[in-house]
């Protein structure tokens, strides 16, 4: 790849030292603590920033070279996909609904991550983490762009791809879940941001999103998604090492950092787990061909891999996050509870839902022997019966949302899967509700932060989610239709059942045309 040179090049370690440490300086016109005002208020004590080392020892010159190579590979595939009607090669157009959720719920997070790492890079006084944050910031904007480019191909043919990454992320009820996760992290200080995103999200959780789900995309013939997914995850490998390095660095710098770091790990592990509910549902219900169940993915990537990580951190005094007991109960329930919710609210969502067919229900029974037949199959059978009679069930009441994770109150008590779990806290004379002990704990620790949450259901009831100029007293005013208009969800096209949708009809017709000449 490189030109042969007679002079010996610098070794990796030497080059890294020159291109990071060598680029830093002490400020002279202003004191360092004024230039880096966010470096101390969170209580994290750092004595020697030079102890920070990126294990990949990646420098900017090498970074550009390898990232350019990744982009060339990715765009070659995207061109081929577009040129060869790649969209007709997927297993079943139901699959696209998972991609719509990805585009609207995850791609905008990449963009916020880009901004957040730019800010973290600005706010850390140490040169090592600043360079690493700079690279990660550029990676994240690349992810947002490549995801939007890749999925724009589908926007030419299918409903529901037109507004997710820009308009809907700011408004739609279920998208406030991932959005509020990043808002929470971004409005914290730079060290908490690193634990929230660099450690919990990247190291502990993104494997669940980008590895088994993307492998699933490949299994379902979606060349575009698997390619951007793996291309993004190749950067994540670097982000994970950064997250892990950051946490070890904080713990090694001062023993006083331990309780702060532990609190953030507990908080962000739970926040991340809640956001992953959407991914659980995508894996168990939205991939027509499944690679593994959510529960299996959870066991490999969270329990085994996370377990290894926490064993390793035990030497610093770090304990496994408090939420683990509840997580091991929840892994058998959350994908089903989430899909049941979206099925009931399919009229208010920017993608289609469906009832699992007989073969899919058998797969779910086999993968979830303790829970599926007992709690969820009867529900689907009941809904199937109602739908067959022309009484397809829609829930027309807006649900109460958790003040912290913003997910509707659909999760059940850890010791009773038939009882909805909710917790109540009081702050300044007002009552606030959370979905779990984990979220309540987070609320109680910083109520002044979470009372400011923009909760979609509250906002609808307050009349803030209608198009400008809407008159709720006008005759025939339909609040749901007005909210959908404000969401840019085209009623009857983007929402409701997959069965009978334009996507279903078009996919069948186009695939037919692709194999015949008439």
């Amino acid at each position, binding site marked *: *790849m*490189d030109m042969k040179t007679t002079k010996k090049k610098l*070794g*990796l*370690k030497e080059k890294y030292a020159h291109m990071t440490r060598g680029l830093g300086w002490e400020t002279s016109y202003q004191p360092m603590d004024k230039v880096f005002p966010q470096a101390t208020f969170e209580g994290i004590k750092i004595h020697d920033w030079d102890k920070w080392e990126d*294990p*990949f*020892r*990646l420098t900017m010159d*090498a970074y550009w070279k*390898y990232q350019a*190579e*990744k982009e060339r*590979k990715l765009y070659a595939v995207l061109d081929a996909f577009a040129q060869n009607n790649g969209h007709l090669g997927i297993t079943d157009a139901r699959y696209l609904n998972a991609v719509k959720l990805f585009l609207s719920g995850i791609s905008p997070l990449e963009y916020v991550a880009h901004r957040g790492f730019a800010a973290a890079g600005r706010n850390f006084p140490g040169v090592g983490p600043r360079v690493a944050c700079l690279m990660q910031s550029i990676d994240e904007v690349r992810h947002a762009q490549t995801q939007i480019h890749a999925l724009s191909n589908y926007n030419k043919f299918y409903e529901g791809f037109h507004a997710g990454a820009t308009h809907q992320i700011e408004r739609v009820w279920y998208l406030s879940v991932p959005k509020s996760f990043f808002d929470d992290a971004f409005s914290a200080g730079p060290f908490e941001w690193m634990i929230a995103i660099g450690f919990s999200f990247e190291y502990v959780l993104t*494997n669940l999103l*980008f*590895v*088994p789900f*993307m*492998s*699933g995309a*490949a*299994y379902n013939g979606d060349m575009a998604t*698997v390619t951007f997914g*793996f291309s993004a*995850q*190749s950067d*994540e*490998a*670097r982000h*994970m*090492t950064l997250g*892990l390095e950051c946490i070890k660095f904080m713990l090694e710098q001062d023993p006083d950092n331990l309780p702060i770091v532990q609190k953030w790990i507990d908080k962000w592990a739970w926040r991340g787990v809640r956001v992953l509910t959407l991914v659980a549902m995508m894996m168990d219900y939205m991939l027509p061909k499944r*690679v593994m169940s959510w529960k299996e993915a959870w066991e490999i990537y969270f329990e*085994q*891999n996370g*377990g*290894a*990580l926490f*064993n*390793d951190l*035990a*030497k610093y005094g770090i304990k496994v996050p408090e939420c683990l007991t509840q997580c091991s109960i929840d892994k058998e329930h959350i994908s089903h509870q989430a899909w049941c919710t979206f099925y009931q609210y399919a009229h208010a969502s920017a993608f289609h839902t469906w009832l699992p067919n007989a073969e899919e229900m058998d797969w779910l029974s086999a993968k979830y022997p303790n829970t599926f037949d007992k709690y969820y199959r009867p529900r689907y059978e009941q809904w199937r019966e109602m739908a067959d009679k022309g009484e397809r069930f829609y829930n027309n009441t807006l649900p109460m949302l958790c003040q912290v994770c913003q997910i509707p109150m659909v999760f059940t008590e850890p010791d009773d899967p038939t009882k909805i779990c909710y917790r109540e806290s009081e702050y300044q004379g007002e009552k606030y509700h959370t979905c779990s002990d984990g979220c309540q704990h987070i609320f109680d620790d910083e109520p002044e932060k979470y009372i400011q949450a923009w909760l979609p259901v509250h906002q609808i009831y307050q009349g803030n989610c209608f198009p400008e100029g809407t008159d709720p007293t006008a005759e025939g005013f339909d609040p749901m239709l007005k909210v959908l208009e404000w969401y840019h969800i085209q009623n009857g096209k983007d929402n409701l059942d997959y069965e009978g949708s334009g996507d279903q009809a078009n996919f069948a017709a186009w695939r037919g045309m692709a194999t015949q000449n008439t």
Partner: protein
Amino acid sequence: MSTVFIAFQTNEDTRPIIESILADNPHAVLDEQPAMVKINAEGRLVIKRESIEERIGRDFDLQELQVNLITLSGNMDEDDDQLTLAWKN
């Protein structure tokens, strides 16, 4: 003992890399999944530049691994000659 892993895209670039890793780490276990190859190993996994160069017949910079890398787990250390993943417990 905890497991470390590394995963690559399945393609022509990674085939010799995976062969080298398996040859250099007899305890490693191959896990082939759609579009990706994951290598799991108890405790520790080493990727050696020389072994890859022997198979591809040209100079190789270990940082080239990043182009086809999907994910990894474990504490990482990389220099010009090898990349190591390990859990120190």
